């Protein structure tokens, strides 16, 4: 007499819960995260407790790292080249919002240099991007 062969579990059945979870994770990351283009260089913005919640703007972002490297619209620039570039950018609409995404370690004088350039280029308002402080 032959013993009945133990029923072989279907391999696909084992995998289905795994797929379910992976799909759930996939949907979570698709919905909860926002896809952003990585910055040209690493910038850690300062932390604030207050401040208005905003979405990361798509355009008009001036990037500045702790060593004073500057980039505007995904293009690395020297401080002297920033002025003409901004003038050109502001030419069609001087009220276009400009956003500064600067590292928390940027010293004040570098910030002032950039603000002088902005002012000379005709911008009169600037938004500073920050992250909310963790409590």
């Amino acid at each position, binding site marked *: 007499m032959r013993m009945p062969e133990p029923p072989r579990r279907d391999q696909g059945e084992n995998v289905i819960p795994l797929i379910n979870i992976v799909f759930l994770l996939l949907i979570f990351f698709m919905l909860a995260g926002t896809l952003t283009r990585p910055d040209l260089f690493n910038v850690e913005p*300062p932390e604030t407790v207050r401040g208005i919640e905003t979405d990361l703007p798509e355009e008009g972002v001036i990037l500045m790292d702790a060593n004073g490297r500057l980039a505007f619209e995904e293009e690395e620039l020297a401080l002297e080249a920033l002025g003409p570039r901004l003038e050109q950018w502001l030419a069609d609409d001087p009220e276009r919002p400009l956003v500064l995404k600067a590292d928390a370690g940027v010293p*004040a004088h570098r910030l002032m240099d950039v603000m002088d350039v902005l002012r000379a280029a005709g911008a009169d308002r600037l938004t500073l991007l920050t*992250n909310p402080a963790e409590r």
Partner: protein
Amino acid sequence: MVIDSPPVRRRNLIGLTPLIDVVFILLVFFMLASSFLDWRSIALSLPGEGGEPSSDTPPLVVRIASDGVLTLDGENMELAELERRLSTLLGEDPARAVIIRPADDVSLQRIVQVVDRLSAAGGSNMTLNREGR
């Protein structure tokens, strides 16, 4: 009793393994490419070359020294004290201009910390300016 019929294995019409591979790759892509950072913004006005925006009352000047000491109109004080003073002063005139003059090597984090507290105190018209101008 002889049972020799092996259980019928149903073959999946489409292999599951490639599907899982693709889903995993998508998962890894979204995990790496998405960011979960919250963003906040602080509005600063860039003052014109000439004068500060004219107001009946003179602007309040907050200086930040390189060692982090805060000065309001020539008087040293702590951040909490500064916030209290300014909320009193700005309570009388909310549109009063506040000028923040950080020393050259004060970090942006410190400036933002002060700006943050001043906006909590009711400051709405804040400008950053160079020390000694």
